[in-house]
């Protein structure tokens, strides 16, 4: 009897807790999953959707040739940022399941996130305790920001999941004092894949790898053993093969614009305030502080993982200052170190609680359950609060109605991705939004002095001016005046106006 109870407490209860948390995480993520992906950075998600659709049509032998050509052409309008592994995988699933359904990649992203959660649980359990691990997992899967962002069709959830797998394997590698081939290979592959999926992972992965190397008992000897160099090789060669040798020029341009040209931001106080303000909207600053401070309570290998990930996130911010202060998903890599910090905190407190009366422990458990339930409810409410089901129809109609007898310049949502995906049409040129202009100014470009000359230059060869982003048009009064005062309206529909640039009023 006693043995049975001990077994239940030691093995079954943690397993039940783990399964419950993973199921809760899955339930939260599949809620309203077929809603179009406008809830979180639609530009990025629709970009992936357009690429995937092109791949799917390319592979689908039965597809209508005209549609196929169109889908591939739209895919080709997309710039390359990272290898389209997730998109290719999704296209295969589309092919296997016989159709294009946007909830499929979102489900895949969610499953990848939960797999990352499982790795996080095991890592946290090894460096803290079961209670600490459960806390880390609960935070990782139930935080409202995590729920919304982790089901987005973009490489970031997979990158974070792979980064955690890398931490998990590196910890095992370090525990074997760098001698285990199995963990060497796994650590190298996970680390390399994380960076390959999205290059942002490089900072966290390299910082962790260095941290774990420092935890080795015999570092000098480790430098001479092949496992260390195989790990380093896998970590480096997989992503370097793509980013340096595959799209080297594109990578250089990307780094030059987003890092070098925007480096001035690092000297501006408002950049740090904007960064913190964005974080404030995602996670309470007190939680961030508590988790950071608690990271120093972890044992050496736990510290290597947590502090490596903290350092990685900091480096992301300093390297991509514009995005980190404006794109929420650039802060997704912050969630694993936060979770590890909470694991450390709860681990230490649970040790203290062991000496407390049963009633006190029951009280703490009840409070933990209430908080978990409340957080899950908030996450679910965030998803339930909005529905975008009617949005695609307007874009479909617009795509069908837009004339095909001339070139179109556009001031539109998400760089035209909504129109491209749902309307199957791509504008020929884009008018800069105020956000784009601000970005160009931050990068050192000067604003055009003569608006009319600039307008004439931008619209040269264009027949129509499409506007769907009316708030931005209001923010550009010169453009608004020029369009309304000079050109007749060629078409007007649900959510758009098309000006005819070939005629004047």
């Amino acid at each position: 009897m006693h043995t049975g109870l001990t077994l239940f407490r030691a093995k079954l209860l943690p397993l039940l807790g783990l399964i419950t948390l993973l199921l809760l995480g899955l339930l939260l993520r599949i809620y309203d999953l077929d809603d179009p992906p406008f809830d979180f950075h639609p530009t990025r998600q629709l970009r992936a959707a357009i690429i995937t659709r092109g791949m799917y049509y390319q592979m689908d032998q039965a597809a209508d040739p005209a549609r196929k050509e169109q889908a591939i052409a739209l895919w080709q309008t997309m710039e390359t940022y990272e290898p389209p592994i997730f998109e290719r995988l999704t296209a295969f699933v589309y092919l296997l399941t016989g159709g294009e359904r946007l909830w499929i990649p979102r489900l895949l992203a969610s499953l990848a996130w939960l797999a990352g959660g499982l790795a996080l649980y095991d890592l946290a359990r090894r460096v803290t305790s079961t209670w600490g691990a459960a806390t880390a997992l609960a935070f990782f899967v139930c935080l409202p920001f995590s729920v919304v962002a982790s089901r987005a069709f973009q490489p970031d959830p997979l990158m974070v999941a792979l980064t955690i797998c890398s931490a998990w394997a590196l910890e095992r590698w370090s525990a074997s004092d760098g001698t285990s081939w199995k963990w060497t290979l796994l650590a190298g592959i996970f680390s390399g894949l994380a960076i390959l999926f999205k290059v942002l992972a490089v900072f966290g992965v390299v910082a962790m790898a260095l941290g774990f190397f420092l935890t080795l008992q015999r570092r000098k000897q480790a430098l001479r053993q092949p496992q260390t160099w195989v790990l380093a090789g896998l970590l480096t060669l997989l992503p370097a093969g793509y980013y340096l040798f595959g799209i080297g020029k594109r990578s250089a341009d990307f780094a030059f614009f987003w890092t070098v040209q925007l480096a001035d931001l690092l000297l501006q106080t408002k950049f740090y305030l904007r960064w913190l303000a964005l974080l404030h909207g995602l996670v309470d600053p007190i939680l961030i502080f508590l988790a950071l401070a608690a990271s120093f309570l972890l044992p050496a290998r736990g510290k290597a993982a947590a502090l490596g990930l903290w350092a990685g996130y900091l480096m992301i911010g300093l390297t991509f200052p514009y995005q980190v202060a404006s794109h929420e998903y650039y802060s997704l890599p912050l969630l694993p170190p936060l979770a590890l910090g909470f694991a450390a905190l709860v681990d230490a407190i649970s040790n203290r609680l062991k000496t407390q009366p049963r009633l006190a422990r029951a009280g703490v458990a009840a409070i933990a359950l209430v908080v978990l339930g409340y957080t899950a409810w908030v996450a679910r409410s965030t998803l339930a609060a909005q529905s975008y089901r009617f949005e695609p129809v307007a874009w479909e109609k617009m795509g069908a109605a837009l004339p095909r007898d001339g070139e179109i310049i556009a001031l539109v949502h998400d760089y035209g991705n909504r129109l491209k995906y749902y309307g199957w049409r791509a504008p020929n040129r884009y008018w800069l939004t105020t956000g784009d202009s601000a970005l160009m100014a931050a990068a050192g470009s000067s604003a055009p002095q003569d608006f009319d000359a600039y307008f004439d230059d931008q619209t040269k060869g264009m027949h129509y001016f499409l506007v769907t982003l009316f708030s931005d048009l209001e923010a550009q009064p010169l453009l608004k005046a020029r369009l309304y005062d000079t050109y007749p309206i060629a078409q007007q529909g649900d959510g758009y106006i098309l000006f005819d640039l070939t005629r004047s009023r």
Partner: protein
Amino acid sequence: MNPAHSKNRRWLESLRAALQPVFSVQVMAVAVIFLTAAILRFYDLSDPPLDFHPTRQLHSALISRGYLAAWGGGNLTDFERSRAVALGASESRIEPPVIEFLAACLALLGTDVIFAGRALAAGAWLFGGLPVFWTGRRFGGVTGGMVALLLFFFLPYAVIASRAFQPDPLMVSLIAWALWAILRFGDTPSPRRAAWAGLLAGAAILVKQVAVFPLGLAFAGCLLADWEWHRAAHSRTVWLIGILSFLPALLYNVYGVFGDGFLSQQYALRFFPALYSDPGFYIRWMLKVESTVSLPVLLGALLGLALLQNRNGRGLLIGGLAGYLLYGFAFAYHISTHDYYQEPLFPLVALGMAPLAGWIWKGIGERSGKPGRVLSAAALIGITLFTLYTTRSTLRRTDFRPEPPLWRALAAKMEYDSANVIGLFDDYGYRLMYWGYMMPANWSTTGDEQMRILAGQTLTPQDFQTITGSKRFFVVQNLKELENQPILRNTLYNNYTIFDQTNAYIVFDLKSPKNATQPGQ
């Protein structure tokens, strides 16, 4: 050596020794925290108090101005003075008008009565920081004390709420003092300490009676952590604390209910047991906690409780939190709709975080040494500075200075005739009362009606003609509420001409119907 020189040197050394603790890093850090908290609270304090529960603040302002006017103070005309006295006297007094009285005294020196009230509230909160720091230091060392103080002073809601002209900031400060005094009594009981604990708890409960919940149970918790029931029941010092705590409020209530009678109707619409079975009530309550002290801080405080070594302290905080829960159930409607009902939670969570902070700091020192401590301290300073900046931005963003002239002008246009005016207001017409010296009748909002239904009252529909029969003006300030009452909206817009309109209000002239034949037409 010259004896005089030697004497001077000895004197200098003794002075240096005496001043050394004053200029220690810790003392300087605490001083900086206090100074920053004071600067933040006095920033833009002369803005009219419309940023935070204007109804409640203008209620206090009216009472205070009534005193001031009655004493002959303030720069008022005879008309304004007589109106101010009457308006002040007409305000209900649920709790004794302590802060209102003090504000009026301060205003006698020449300051504006609202500014005086807000400054007193802010000062009281700052003063409450002392016991928070001292008690926090006992629970979690100097780090614990400082973190408790940082939370008590700089949680964004605390900054805004502590500048409000209402009794709550003074009550919170006195709760903090009473908790400190009760803990001191619990550690080393003595008649002197009992007297202090009783007097401070009594003052807190007198200022706002809801303090009885956290303080009563905190006292019980602290006592029972160490004492047996029968020992407590037979202790004269315990009785002394009990009597000093309850007597002032008891006397006030006896006088208010059975003597003067001004309290006899004040306990209606307070108790809503029907809400207990509504899950939405708990969610709304949690959302209020989230928007005030924030859930992470509450959780941190609960974790801190688990780490607290001091038995009396643990009893004190558990009792205090249990008292807050009981208070929430007792005032179920208000706790889930009024954020300032969460204010008694501030000293409790700040103190609860102290042992957690102290314990983390100790752990970091042991496991990560100085680098860990330096990085953690830097992160804490960074987050505090960011919070300060955002709170200051919130204060800066709003400017209500254009409002008072608007209401003064409207009152003049309506010839100060209160009997002629009814309105649908955001704040029961308090702006018109305070700045316009008028007392308009109120058209009920849907929120008022819902509260009455919850309290079990039977409602009769508001009949427009019956209610507005003798009125000339219908002031609509709450335009959102007007949309919630489409019949009223249509009646006003379809039948009556607009007398005056600004961004703040629309006034309909009920004696000038739209379809009436105008003289001369």
